[in-house]
């Protein structure tokens, strides 16, 4: 992602239980890093589309940025397909797959 000076929020140290993927839930949406999407934009999409808290959206965005990808949703296949298309409508690079 593109880092704009002054817009990089503090590193989010928070960990929460949502970070753990429930292995009983078989499908996930993964958002992949790219050098174009703004960090502020990616975080905003996670917040406004998924309804995630500022802290969670920021943590997922940083995961994408630093680790190259992040699981941003999990659940039934049909729902994950919808989320993937929605991410594409925002210009985020997303795929769905079975959870590992």
């Amino acid at each position, binding site marked *: 992602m593109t880092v704009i000076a002054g817009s990089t929020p503090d590193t989010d140290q928070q960990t929460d239980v949502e970070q753990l993927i429930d292995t009983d839930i078989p499908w996930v949406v993964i958002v992949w890093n790219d*050098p174009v999407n703004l960090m502020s934009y990616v975080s905003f999409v996670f917040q406004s589309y998924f309804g995630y808290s500022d802290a969670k959206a920021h943590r997922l965005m940083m995961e994408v940025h630093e680790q190259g990808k992040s699981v941003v949703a999990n659940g039934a296949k049909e729902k994950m*397909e919808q989320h993937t298309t929605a991410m594409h409508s*925002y210009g985020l690079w997303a795929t769905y*797959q079975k959870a590992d």
Partner: protein
Amino acid sequence: MAKAFRNTRKGIAGYLEPGERDLVRKLFGDIITMLEPDEVANEDPLAAMVGLDEKAETPSDPALFRLLPNAVNNDDDEALEFRRLTERSLRETKVGALRAASLALDSSRLLLDYEQGQIFSRALNDVRLVLAQRLEIESTEDADRIHEVLEPSQAEDVEQYLALVYNFTTWLQESLMQALVDQLDQRGQQPPEPPGDQ
């Protein structure tokens, strides 16, 4: 000179010179042209109505592929099947946002509400994705190289001109995101606890 977006009592306000508006409108128009599906003769009207496109193929243009990426990795058959079920609707969603964003460019003083701001940011994002493909921005280092082109006097060839345009749209989108994030924060905030000694 353009002015950054900011929140005002009337909404998210921005300012673009006429030449800058023409440029952004042209960019939106270019992406619309890329995304509009080709007219298909003898098309099944029911399939079109529900957004199916049995003949959709993986785009050969990398910029179009970035706008309409595969939804599945490592399984081309499933990716193509999903594309045939969803790509037409995705194209229409994107074109709708780009058209709506173009309408906001009717005057130099831009005034957007929260929803219009979101739509405008999506349109700018699609423009940047396409410009980035043309500029071959594939890594953070590439992006940094492009960000160094800031002065119009530096633009000596097409690539450098595109880099200027990319940096301009990046700046514009970033300022819009700050305004949108502030609005989202305000929406998400609970009313403050009333002061008192309960």
